[in-house]
């Protein structure tokens, strides 16, 4: 049933007069000036995305709206599917690292670390990784967490109208990415972590550079908070929108900052410490309401906690090797490869066959930018994974988006979706 004006074609052909089946205004409508009389409306279906700036080009939500109210929502993901899990079966474990860069592309190093830890768990060498390598992984992981949250908070703020904080936060992210470029050789697709350690040692002035950048970031974050935390336009869009209770969030499988916004203090770094996270003193920020504002505030506080971890890690980082000294697992140093037959053979064996992992399966989980980032690996004893599955946190968050937006206004979708922080590369894999 179509409601509304006749189309131009119908007017020209005279068909409009024949359309008796269309709903008509009540007799005398508009004459008695009864503003309380219900308008004859009917639900309308609109497509939000995939070509919508707030939908990242990777999500489509088929909305059924009644006026401004969302009645039904059908969230369709998969626009960025590129067979990560299948591709991984045809790549050696080392070759998977460039693919993991492209999972959550605002915090690629966290994915690198997550995958390396899954492979190491399967190899049974989790406790043999050199301490310096573990500290480097913590450093790059926390820098990536900050870039992840900066992007999420900045972009979401921009989507609700706060453009200046976006520019300031992206400026901070740029400083951090410049630092990571110096360290890893690439701004975004780092491919820096390897099984058994990392690809290269820290640069000479890394600690000082990082401290300088963190000081500048702290200053910028104070300014950002002055602009938006008490700004009523921002607060009206965020407060009390998309509220979810802790029980529901747990039932949906939420993790990460979104779960913590409901008051559940689950953080993999605290509850199941990996690497050297048990040596740092940091708090787990939780919210009290579970609305969009809490998700924003938890992310802001998490950045501060990450900075605390970074400073402690810089103080504590020991000297030593940055990768495991085992030619079966990590490549031998170049001087050995160039000059000794043992080094050369180990090097060739590992490149051609990959790191051979004994048959078995392992699930390893780390705290990613959006929540628990898990890698499930099955090995058949060769140098390539038999099966590789990613527990992408935002894929699981996405299933609850209809619940969050049904009943809300169309304009509430934007901050809700922004605070879920769905990253296409990770969600669709």
């Amino acid at each position: 049933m179509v409601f509304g004006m006749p189309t131009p074609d119908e007017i020209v052909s005279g068909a409009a007069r024949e359309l008796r089946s269309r709903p008509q205004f009540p007799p005398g409508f508009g004459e008695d000036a009864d503003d309380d009389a219900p308008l004859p409306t009917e639900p309308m279906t609109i497509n939000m995305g995939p070509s919508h700036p707030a939908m990242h080009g990777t999500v489509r939500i088929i909305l059924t709206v009644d006026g401004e109210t969302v009645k039904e929502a059908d969230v369709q993901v998969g626009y960025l599917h590129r067979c990560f899990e299948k591709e991984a079966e045809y790549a050696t474990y080392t070759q998977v690292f460039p693919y993991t860069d492209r999972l959550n592309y605002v915090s690629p190093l966290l994915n690198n670390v997550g995958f390396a830890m899954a492979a190491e768990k399967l190899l049974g060498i989790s406790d043999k990784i050199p301490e310096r390598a573990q500290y480097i992984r913590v450093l790059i992981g926390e820098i990536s967490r900050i870039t992840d949250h900066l992007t999420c908070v900045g972009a979401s703020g921009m989507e609700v109208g706060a453009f200046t904080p976006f520019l300031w936060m992206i400026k901070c992210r740029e400083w951090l990415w410049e630092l990571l470029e110096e360290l890893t050789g690439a701004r975004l697709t780092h491919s820096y972590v390897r099984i058994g350690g990392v690809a290269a040692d820290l640069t000479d002035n890394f600690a000082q550079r990082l401290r300088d950048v963190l000081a500048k970031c702290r200053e910028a974050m104070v300014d950002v908070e002055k602009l938006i935390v008490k700004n009523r336009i921002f607060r009206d869009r965020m407060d009390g929108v998309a509220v979810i209770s802790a029980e529901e969030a747990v039932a949906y499988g939420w993790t990460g900052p979104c779960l913590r916004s409901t008051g559940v203090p689950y953080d993999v770094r605290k509850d199941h410490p990996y690497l050297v996270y048990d040596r740092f003193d940091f708090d787990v920020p939780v919210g009290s309401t579970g609305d969009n504002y809490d998700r924003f505030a938890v992310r802001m506080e998490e950045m501060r906690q990450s900075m605390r971890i970074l400073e402690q890690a810089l103080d504590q980082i020991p000297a030593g090797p940055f990768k495991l000294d085992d030619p079966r697992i990590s490549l031998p140093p170049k001087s050995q490869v160039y000059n000794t037959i043992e080094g050369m053979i180990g090097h060739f064996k590992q490149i051609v066959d990959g790191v051979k992992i004994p048959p078995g399966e392992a699930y390893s989980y780390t705290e990613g930018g959006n929540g628990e980032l898990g890698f499930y690996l099955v090995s058949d004893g060769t140098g390539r994974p038999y099966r590789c599955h990613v527990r992408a946190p935002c894929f699981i968050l996405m299933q609850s988006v209809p619940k969050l937006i049904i009943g809300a206004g169309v304009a509430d979708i934007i901050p809700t979706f922004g605070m879920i922080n769905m990253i296409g590369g990770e969600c669709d894999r």
Partner: protein
Amino acid sequence: MAASHAEKTHAAPAAPQGGGPRKGTVAVRVVGRPDSLEQRIYLPEVVKGLGVTAKHFFANLFSRKYTVTVEYPEQKVKYPPRNRGLHRLMHREDGEVRCVACMLCPTVCPAHCITIVPEETGNGNEKRPKVFEIDELRCVVCGLCVEACPCDAIRMDTGEHATAVDFRADAILGKLDLLKRGAASTAVQGGVGGDWRAKADKTRDETP
């Protein structure tokens, strides 16, 4: 925002995933939700916000304190030494290509962008690449080829990134293109001579 937080402890579930000793409690910080009269009546906070932007405006006007703009075509940011850019092939002392066509880089390349056709050199002990092509359109710039090279023949430290080309074929770099960017390698190789161990320590051990 951190002004109104409350500290409490939360008994964390046991069963660590792996790793050393751990603390029994989790320090939890409840994030604040500032809600004040001046915020509700809208104008004072708008004025404060304008104060922040005005601070930035005048600081930038007089000292460019907060600006990070690089006037791109005139100024260029220099890439850091570890930056991965276009590939190059290194030379031996006699100017020949260092590559011995061992096929490790096409093997390790996740994007299958390297093509090598080996040929005899006439030496009997050696071979060399007859064709060495890298499709820079396929390359994902991961640097695994540099890490895999056992004779310091391929490097990505040119400091140039792949530029726009008129035709796809122009993005496929051949052996001569790659050698043109190359230089004589200083890597000590082969283990010959009595002092190779002392020399080898000075070579590049890291290939990010």
